[in-house]
């Protein structure tokens, strides 16, 4: 379980998140939705230690991790897929997958890479190519694959379906459900495709201007009378 307690965070002096209280339950999918610029990505970065925390706490399984350096959070089992710049363009696909499992033993790394390639078999054709030469969609596959290589219990995905055609986006949504059901991962999912995200999620948070505007069951938000309106606010 991951919790944030009255989290105020941003970039240096810039204040983006205000008093965010959130509880991300284990073994479920929690969606974070909200308009552009509402602070969704900042929320994930703050949880991972890549944004400035002004006050408040981040707790993982009851332990205060607010001051733990990001690379050690990886070792604790937290994985984070950033929205942008999420692969190393100058490294080959193979090197990207290897570096993703930096904290793993050699044999384990091989197993994890095999697992990631099972999910995205198309990557096998590009192993020796530099990631910078992949198409936007292929690069996104690689990015998600690297998140799978990292052995984690808690996985944060920032817009994993961005840049993907509807068919592939659906493929990714299926995979996310599979990660929850088969690998029993805890997933924190930021998505622009609000409808689909809420359909597969258990819980949901709505962020507006850096504050929590709704928290509860995902289907409640889906059926919320204001949902349409929220979505309109969200989508433009």
């Amino acid at each position: 379980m991951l919790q944030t307690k009255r989290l105020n965070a941003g970039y240096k002096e810039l204040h983006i998140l205000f008093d965010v209280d959130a509880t991300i339950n284990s073994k479920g999918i929690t969606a974070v939705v909200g308009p552009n610029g509402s602070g969704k990505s900042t929320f994930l970065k703050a949880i991972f230690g890549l944004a400035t925390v002004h006050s408040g706490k981040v707790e993982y399984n009851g332990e205060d991790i607010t001051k733990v350096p990001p690379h050690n959070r990886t070792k604790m089992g937290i994985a984070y897929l950033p929205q942008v710049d999420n692969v190393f363009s100058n490294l080959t696909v193979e090197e990207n997958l290897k570096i993703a499992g930096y904290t793993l033993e050699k044999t384990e790394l091989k197993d994890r890479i095999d697992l990631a390639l099972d999910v995205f078999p198309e990557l096998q054709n590009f192993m020796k190519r530099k990631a910078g030469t992949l198409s936007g969609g292929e690069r996104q596959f690689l990015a998600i694959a690297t998140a799978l290589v990292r052995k984690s219990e808690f996985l944060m995905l920032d817009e994993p379906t961005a840049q993907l055609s509807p068919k592939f986006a659906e493929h990714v949504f299926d995979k996310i459900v599979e990660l929850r059901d088969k690998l029993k991962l805890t997933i924190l999912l930021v998505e622009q495709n609000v409808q689909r995200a809420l359909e597969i999620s258990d819980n949901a948070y709505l962020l507006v201007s850096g504050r929590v505007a709704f928290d509860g069951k995902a289907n409640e938000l889906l059926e919320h009378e204001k949902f349409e309106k929220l979505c309109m606010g969200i989508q433009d």
Partner: protein
Amino acid sequence: MAFEAEVLEGAIIYSNLLVLLSIGLTITYITTAVPNFAQGSFAVFGSYIALTMLRLFGIHPYYSIPIALIFGGLLGVAVYLFILKPLIDREAEIVILMIATLALDLILLGFLGAYSDYLGGITKKAAKKFIFTPYDFNIGNISAIFIVSIIVIAIILASLFLLLYKTKFGVALRASMENPALAEIMGVNVEYTRIFSWFLSGSLATVAGCLLPFRQEIVPLTGSIIIVSIFAASIVGGLASIYGALIGGYIVGISESLVTYQLSTILGSGVLVYSKVVSLIVLVVMLILAPQGLTGVKWRKIKWLKSILS
């Protein structure tokens, strides 16, 4: 124009050493964004290590290379941890870091000056100004330093290549150079890669410094002069890539040696003191033709080159 073998040999030796220095400068610039103006004095530090070994223990400078490498690495790490990192942690801008390395250069200069007096005092031999050419020997018709400098650069480049492309840490190092935040996300302790890059840079500089006295006279101030060529080489290479530094080092090193030599045959040996001007001219011409440096050039987009390649 034809050059005597000796002149070409000298140019290659000098370029090999310059490449070591410009690679070091580039690596720390990529990983920590510090333009290290003390890199030249790091090399002179290496020269003095070799001199000390020679005068106190009778160890030939070629055998001092491993010792210089370790001390140079430690110097690099100490400079990073005690001078630069505290500034970087306070979010110092690049200008501040630059001034810090200039100050460091002055401190090293003072230290080397004082040390040379001390060494001269206890050995009763001048240490303020020295050269190793009397200790060199010939292998066949070729001077040993020519062969040694080639062996050293070959070993270093090969190890660097193996490290960067064949080891896990090397891949992490390249990943951290490209995107430190993402490397952290993957579980890489990026700070280690920064410390390592300073070790590497310091050790490459002192290794070069060990061999430099076979080519030219060393005084404590030598570092402040040679830094001009080091920067020229790195900037010609684009300051963002190790390959760039390699190619830049050879371009600057060879042109500096040969052009200066050519001019000296016409104008007399007085022009030798202006050799650094040649480096700067190469730099200026380069910046006009390719403002991003060599590695920033889209080679495939150049028409005449395309026609040659196809």
